[in-house]
């Protein structure tokens, strides 16, 4: 069994108004060190091993459904699940 952690964020070129609002709050709280906040999604998938390669599967699922590559970037990690 594999555990796949997928991180999805808006592409760098796209304004993240939610992140900007949170950044404003952090600045008001005195955390001036924060220069940017980007808010995204975290997906965790349990995948049973099969003949199909995990990387191929994850990339396919990300391109077809889990992300919209017009506006989003993603990266993922594969771990051994218990």
């Amino acid at each position: 069994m594999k555990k796949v952690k997928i991180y999805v964020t808006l592409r760098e070129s796209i304004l993240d108004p939610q992140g900007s609002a949170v950044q404003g709050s952090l600045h008001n709280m005195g955390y001036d060190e924060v220069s940017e906040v980007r808010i995204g999604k975290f997906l965790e998938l349990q995948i049973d091993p099969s003949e199909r390669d995990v990387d191929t599967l994850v990339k396919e699922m990300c391109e077809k459904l889990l992300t919209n590559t017009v506006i989003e970037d993603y990266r993922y990690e594969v771990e051994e699940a218990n």
Partner: protein
Amino acid sequence: MKFAVLVFPGSNCDLDMYHAIKDELGEEVEYVWHDEQDLSAYDGILVPGGFSYGDYLRCGAMANQSNVMSEVKKAAEAGKPVLGVCNGFQILTEAGLLPGALLRNKKLKFMCKNVDLKVANNNTMFTNQYAQDEVISIPIAHGEGNYYCDGETLKQLQDNNQIVFTYSGENPNGSLADIAGIVNERGNVLGMMPHPERAISEVIGGAEGLALFKSIVKQWRESNVNQA
């Protein structure tokens, strides 16, 4: 002319769309459930607004995986009119039938009010009953209507006159180039955030959306008479 109104779990403007076609336009219309495998009996496809699949993951993402969407793609390839309103627009961009994507409104608020729209191109099968640059009042109701595409795509949209509606005056959601509605390159797929089906009678506050549906029917009648 016979229209299909697609219904996904969570669609909520399907009744308005149906009413607009049947009672105000006087054309044939049927609801079509999202797992339908055949749309060949219909002359026009309407993808209504709402919150298909609860807007989970991304607006329109899961609706795009429904059986009926491969049929919608076939209808679009066949040149039939396909209109997506609000969530319908989001579904059509997810399906790749229209370029770009709809982001969260710039001010993060759900906007529900009447807006002024400029008819930026009246030379389409959806807008031939409007005057060029005519300003019409149509309701919007969305949280994610902030149209985005990359610079190259925007240039293509502009060069091919694919921008059909723009917000006139105030831009309610931060849309790129004030875009409220676009067509595909061929001109038979229109996606728009404002709701023309909610502006079809003075009794409910305005009828300036009705001409959009009349445009579709006019074009269809003419091309079918020509073929006959």
